[in-house]
């Protein structure tokens, strides 16, 4: 439903872009990069959503794990694919550690996971800010130039692994460049998630999400299964931010991840996911539509001499879609 409106809006933007004589090939190139760059963060929402824990508005928790992983890799000046791989691995392990606590809290607040995860995410950010300010890393390029202690809010990744994946095995056809390596990584992870939901463990997650009384009446350990889904979600989020950062070229710390959950949630909803169930296809369609709109709206807004409008429109779409999904999903409830 929602994706039709959004797709219509995208067509309108494409038409506008043509009208304004923009370089469509460049935009197409970018659209693939933007898609894969944000795609994993969107995918990471799926396991928890399917386990009936709602949209993971606490995405910053997983993201933070990935950021720590990257910081360690950068501190040891690891570059290229090795740097990326180590970042992702470390990030994944830290995410596992976080999920033990995060998951247990969410299990305890059953039925209200969304508001609880939102505020866990929100309060986790300032807590991590202490960490960023006090952690004794030694790589000068990561630290505040003055004083020499505390990490910078924005660490350039140029000397390490900026665009490593974007350029890996990229295929050039004329002006058009297909970031094959990047898409491959996205594809593999998406494929793995898809495969996982075919296995018995994956199916148990879906059963818990659809009806946890049924799961219990089938002898399943509901808590264990929910914890598993939180672990998977957080690990993918950690890997996701690594992929994001290498495309973006910067490691953004401090308050940067604060609001990152909302566009991701919105993208998944645009793709057709409900507030209870999402699939890889939803994530792919949603991410592409959402990111393309944002991508197109920036130059168009600049042409119109109202540069702020793209950010505002993104904000309205993000929250409008989430609100819409909330209102629709609860129809037929007690007050209907």
């Amino acid at each position, binding site marked *: 439903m929602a994706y039709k409106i959004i797709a219509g809006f995208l067509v309108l933007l494409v038409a506008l872009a043509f009208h304004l004589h923009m370089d469509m090939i460049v935009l197409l190139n970018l659209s693939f990069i933007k898609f894969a760059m944000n795609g994993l963060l969107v995918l990471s929402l799926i396991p928890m959503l399917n386990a009936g824990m709602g949209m993971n508005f606490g995405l910053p928790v997983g993201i933070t794990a990935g950021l720590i992983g990257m910081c360690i890799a950068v501190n040891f000046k690891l570059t290229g694919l090795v740097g990326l791989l180590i970042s992702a691995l470390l990030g994944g392990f830290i995410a596992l550690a976080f999920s033990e606590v995060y998951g247990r809290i969410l299990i305890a607040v059953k*039925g209200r996971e969304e508001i609880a995860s939102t505020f866990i995410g929100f309060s986790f950010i300032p807590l991590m800010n202490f960490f960023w300010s006090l952690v004794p890393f030694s790589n000068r390029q990561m630290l505040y130039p003055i004083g020499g202690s505390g990490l910078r809010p924005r660490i350039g990744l140029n000397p390490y692994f900026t665009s490593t994946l974007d350029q890996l095995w990229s295929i050039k056809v004329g002006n058009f460049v297909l970031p094959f390596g990047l898409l491959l990584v996205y594809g593999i992870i998406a494929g793995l998630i898809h495969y996982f939901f075919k296995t018995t463990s994956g199916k148990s997650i879906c059963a818990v999400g659809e009806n946890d009384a049924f799961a219990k009446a089938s002898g399943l350990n509901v808590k264990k299964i929910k914890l598993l889904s939180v672990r998977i979600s957080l690990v993918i989020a950690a890997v996701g931010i690594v992929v994001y950062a290498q495309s973006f070229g910067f490691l953004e710390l401090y308050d940067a991840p604060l609001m990152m959950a909302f566009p991701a949630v919105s993208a998944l909803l645009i793709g057709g996911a409900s507030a209870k169930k999402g699939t890889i296809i939803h994530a792919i369609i949603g991410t592409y539509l959402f990111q393309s709109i944002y991508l197109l709206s920036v130059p168009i807004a600049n042409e119109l001499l109202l540069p*702020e409008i793209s950010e505002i429109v993104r904000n309205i779409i993000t929250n409008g879609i989430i609100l819409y999904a909330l209102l629709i999903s609860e129809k037929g409830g007690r007050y209907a």
Partner: protein
Amino acid sequence: MLKKYQMPLFFFVLSIIGISVSGLSPSFVLNETVNRFVRNGVMIFALIIPIKAGMGLNFSVTVGAMCAQMGYIIAIAAGLGGKLGGVAALSLSLTFAIVFGVLIGHCLNQVPGKEMITTMIIGFLANGFYQLIFLVCVGSIIPVKNTEILLSRGTGVRNLIDLEPFRGVLDKIFVVTLHDISFPMFMIGVVLFFGAFINYLMHTPFGKEIKCVGDSSDRAYMVGINSKKVRIKAIVLSTVVASLGHMIYLQNIGMLNVYTGHLKHEIFASAALMAGGATIKDATVRQGILGLLVFHTLFIVSPQAGQQLFDNPALGEYFRSFIAYGTIALALIVNLKNSETV
């Protein structure tokens, strides 16, 4: 008894430690606390009614704040000042607050059990539309008489609007100074009046209905209460009180940050209320007042304390944010635990 005052006591101890570490003079802290009490006081009372009605923390009080800002901006844009401008701003913001309150109330009736996350998203979404109107539409689609408030490009309102005609008008009434601490008695009275008003409401048939709906809307139906209507009224009231609270806040500050002035008030008010010992299921006016005092004292001293302790004022800022979000997160977790909704 101890359990009841656990949270405020904890905050009080933290504040005391903060004051002693920061090296700020007690009179400075006290002055600031009084100032913040009258500035932020009314907003906190906007949260109590929805909590009593079982809807949890109403994060869409930001919409009320936006209504207040719209009132001021329109009054200034129309070139009105003084008493006329004040009345215009007030009546405009009240009208907006009622209209939006009804809208939000209808939305929330669709999402029983998920009111809090919904109010939060509504706040974000409203902020988007607000920005769209004032940054893009004003000056281009909506004509303005007083072009001074526009950006130089002719479209969009400036980031900062001077509220000269309204600055401190209420604060200056009946100020009593004891030693070097000044008490704006009139404003303290206003804040207390709002608290008393909420208290009064809870002792009317309407307040009783609110309590019943908050307890169980099914049982409320059985005894003939229309829960939907009561919930809408609760949200309208909350939005109206929030907009009044923000009007007071703005006249105290004297400057209007058009695009950021309304943000985060919902967080600070909620956190202060929770710090006073309230929960997301029950809150009283007394807890609100207590929370205001302890929470804002901590807020005043923490940057300076961070500076003194770690030679880094930013750490104090982080501590502030952490306290604000963390208090709400803690209240949510503690309250939602063991309350299976199925």
